[in-house]
């Protein structure tokens, strides 16, 4: 029942928001996200006690598809992430003005419902439904509230991801036709059917399904939609895209590809690792030369996701634990960075690093938060990023023969990451003081949002065990 609530609360409050005319919609959104967070916290707690919860009811019997949800460690972790991130977004934006707030918040909540559904679906067709349901509101959000050139950029993003989803759909239908006896889309049946397939079939089927998720993550060379989309989207939507929707891609690989097509995964491992590593270095280099902070963070996100993707295919247990943890950490850290960037844009009226400076003098609290979050994103010890990256690099020393070279090159990403992140901090926080358009350090709601983020960063940096316990069962299942 918890699982159903996780989808129903945002869905219903999202639909309801469209009907509210006044600013009261912000309160509704805040209450709804808070309620969702509480429920996802409960789910995570019960999963921590090793109780996977399920919910299932018939949906289209003729197709063998059921409305079935499952909350295991990985789902609970990502639902928790979604809950936290959405709450922070709503908190921080509570004192900001948007046009037509009812439609804006309605779409945001619908996107949240879609995301929750993706993370919980235990039925391939249901998964596909939610996968698209999460995309449509984001398409509307970017196209209506985005910046300059928003329509063509969002259109490219939409078509790109839609092509991927259709290929995935073809793969899923193919798998469901292979299920024994009656057609079925249940996760267990799909796994069973997939792993029985001959190796040659698994090879092309893997490619078909992986493209969808590679576009979403994004993995080089499927990343071209990403920097533009992040740049033109309004920042709350960028947060949804980068903290949550990219996790959909990685999550889908871990849930719907790796266990389903093991032979295919082995066949493509080298290709994917090479592509990911190219992506890490390439995106990091591009990030260094950016002057727009939003684009810089967009490229850095490609690098971080590339590392996670590479490790996910490394077949190492420690690495997989690290990937799970880092999925959560990356979501938290990048949310923090975006929140600060939106404050910078709000106060200075620009995102160009060359025109910024002296935040430490003019808004010290904001500067402290920015430095802490950025350091977490370059994986300084005692922050959450360190634990995750350490485990992932540990995993990169895996079984495959070329892994040392891979590790060295991927390690470059960390160094380059430090270069662009520290450069960003230096240019915005220190140096000559640039006058603000709108004066003021953190407002109370912004402080509360950042407090949550930084609290998690420090807590998981010192004591990551609860998160590892939550996901250990799933990562052990993935790496036999």
């Amino acid at each position, binding site marked *: 029942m918890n699982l159903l609530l996780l989808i129903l609360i945002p869905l219903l409050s999202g639909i309801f928001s469209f009907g509210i005319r006044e600013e009261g919609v912000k309160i509704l959104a805040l209450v709804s996200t808070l309620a969702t967070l509480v429920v996802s916290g409960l789910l995570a707690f019960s999963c921590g006690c090793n109780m996977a919860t399920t919910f299932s009811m018939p949906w289209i019997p003729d*197709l063998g598809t059921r409305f079935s949800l499952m909350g295991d460690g990985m789902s609970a972790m990502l639902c928790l992430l979604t809950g936290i991130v959405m709450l922070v977004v709503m908190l921080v934006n509570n004192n900001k003005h948007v046009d037509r707030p009812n439609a804006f918040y309605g779409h945001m909540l619908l996107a949240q419902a879609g995301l929750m559904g993706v993370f919980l679906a235990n039925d391939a067709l249901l998964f596909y439904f939610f996968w*698209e349901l999460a995309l449509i509101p984001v398409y509307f959000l970017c196209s209506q509230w985005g910046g300059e050139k928003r329509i063509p950029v969002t259109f490219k993003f939409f078509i790109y991801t839609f*092509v991927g989803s259709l290929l995935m759909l073809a793969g899923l239908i193919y798998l469901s036709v292979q299920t024994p006896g009656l057609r079925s889309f249940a996760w267990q049946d799909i796994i069973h059917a997939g792993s029985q397939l001959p190796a040659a079939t698994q090879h092309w089927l893997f490619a078909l399904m992986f493209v969808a998720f590679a576009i979403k993550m994004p993995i080089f060379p499927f990343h071209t939609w990403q920097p533009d989309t992040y740049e033109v989207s309004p920042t709350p939507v960028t947060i949804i895209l980068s903290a949550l929707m990219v996790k959909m891609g990685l999550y889908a690989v871990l849930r719907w590809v790796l266990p389903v097509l093991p032979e295919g995964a082995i066949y493509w491992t080298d290709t994917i690792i090479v592509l990911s590593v190219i992506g890490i270095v390439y995106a990091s280099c591009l990030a260094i030369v950016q002057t727009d902070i939003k684009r810089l963070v967009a490229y850095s996100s490609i690098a971080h996701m590339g590392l996670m993707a590479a490790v996910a295919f490394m077949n190492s247990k420690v690495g997989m634990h690290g990937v799970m943890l880092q999925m959560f950490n990356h979501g938290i850290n990048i949310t923090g960075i975006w929140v600060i960037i939106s404050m910078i844009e709000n106060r200075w009226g620009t995102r160009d690093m060359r025109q910024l400076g002296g935040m430490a003098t003019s808004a010290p609290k904001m500067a402290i938060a920015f430095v802490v979050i950025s350091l977490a994103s370059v994986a300084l010890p005692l922050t959450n990023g360190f634990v995750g990256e350490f485990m992932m690099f540990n995993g990169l020393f895996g079984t495959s023969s070329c892994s040392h070279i891979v590790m060295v090159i991927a390690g470059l990403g960390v160094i380059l990451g430090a270069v662009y992140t520290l450069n960003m901090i230096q240019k915005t926080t220190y140096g000559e003081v640039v006058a603000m358009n709108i004066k003021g350090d953190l407002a109370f709601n912004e402080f509360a949002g950042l407090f949550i983020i930084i609290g998690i960063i420090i807590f998981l940096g010192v004591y990551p065990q609860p998160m590892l316990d939550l996901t250990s069962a799933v990562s052990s299942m993935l790496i036999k």
Partner: protein
Amino acid sequence: MKALIAATVFGVIMMFSGIVMHNRKSIATLAVALFAVLTGISVWDLISAPCDAPQLLFNNMLRLENLSLWFCVLMTAATLLYVMLLHKEIENVGSHVAEYFALIFFILTGIYLLATFNNMLMLFIGIEILSIPQYILAGSDKYNLKSSEASLKYFLMGAFSTGIMLMGITLVYGAAHSFNIMDFVSMLHSESLNPMALAGILFIIMAFSFKVSAAPMHMWTPDVYDGAPTPFTAFMATIGKAAAFFAFLRLFHVAFANLSSHWTTIIAIITAATLFIGNITAVFQQSVKRMLAYSSIAQAGFMLFAVLAVNAAAWHGIIIYAAAYSVATIGLFSVLVKLKDYTYDGFNGLAKKEPMLAFSAAIFVFSLAGIPLTGGFMAKYYVLLAVMQQGHQMWLIIFALLMAAVSVYYYFRVIAAMYFKAGDPQIASPVTLGDKLLLGLTCLIVLLLGIAPQLVM
């Protein structure tokens, strides 16, 4: 088959009502009432039919299965929806209002024959009864040159394709010594096949390709659909086409199922060509009406999947595709006729001015593009599933999905215009509360088909 007789009688009544009644409004009201009655009668047909064995009627000329009767119900109900949504525009096409409705009744007669034929002669008569009123409707805006051109083009090409079909029927008759499609099953065998039958089947495929506007016989479609008065385009592109598809499926899956190894390759090639031409050409259109003409070619490509897959799933596929595609397209046309300017720019800023029109158009567009939670997704899903079960044609499925992604480009331009661009759209006729309620109902049907497709099966 009470509906068959009722449709004919109602058609005649409508024709004479033009003499007795002079008020357009009351003629339209009568028509809507008669369509509602006809829907009731076709439901009655379905309920009163024995569930197990098919009935044979008129010396084995017609064979009624539950599935065909159900298809009749769906098409009649879709026509009722169509008339309710568009009767105001039909009234304003020309001066012979009663006749337009009468012709639609006759088309339904043809559809009933096509859904239940058991004999090639009935198929031929059904096709003719379906087509001839459509030629007239295409030209019903008499003083408009484009409409007359559309009608003439449609008639000439249509007559030609009917000739080809007759030729095909004759050749198959020569090989099978019968017009009864059940005899084909026993007379035509894959191993010892008379070449004459093969040639006949090829001709029939060509003729059907014309009727369903599949490439390479699609050339007439854009001009005819663009030139014909918009309310009648809505009918021809949806219900008329769906019925032709059902007949196509019925003939090939019942009569020629044993020979499927001989004709599936041709159908596969036609499918690929149709998808390619329909989708790629639609991208370049500037008028939404013309885009919908090409999109109807593209959608025909998907419906051809049902013909390609000779199995039970294909029947479900064609029924849900016919329902989902018809409802969404009729809905989109009923939004289109409210606007003065049929180009994409004419839709600019519609969301601000008429939120309900824009919202429902968005739902219909989602459905046509095959976004989940709408009927269009389920329709595409079922036909693809049918082909997938058949095995072998994975390349075609992937190609079709890529083409579906292309279709998103031109469908979503409508959404981009309505929601993201600023403008002041010119509304042709005021949008009443009744219109909004009907559009809302149509949206509900589209969504319902996407959530619970088992309702139409």
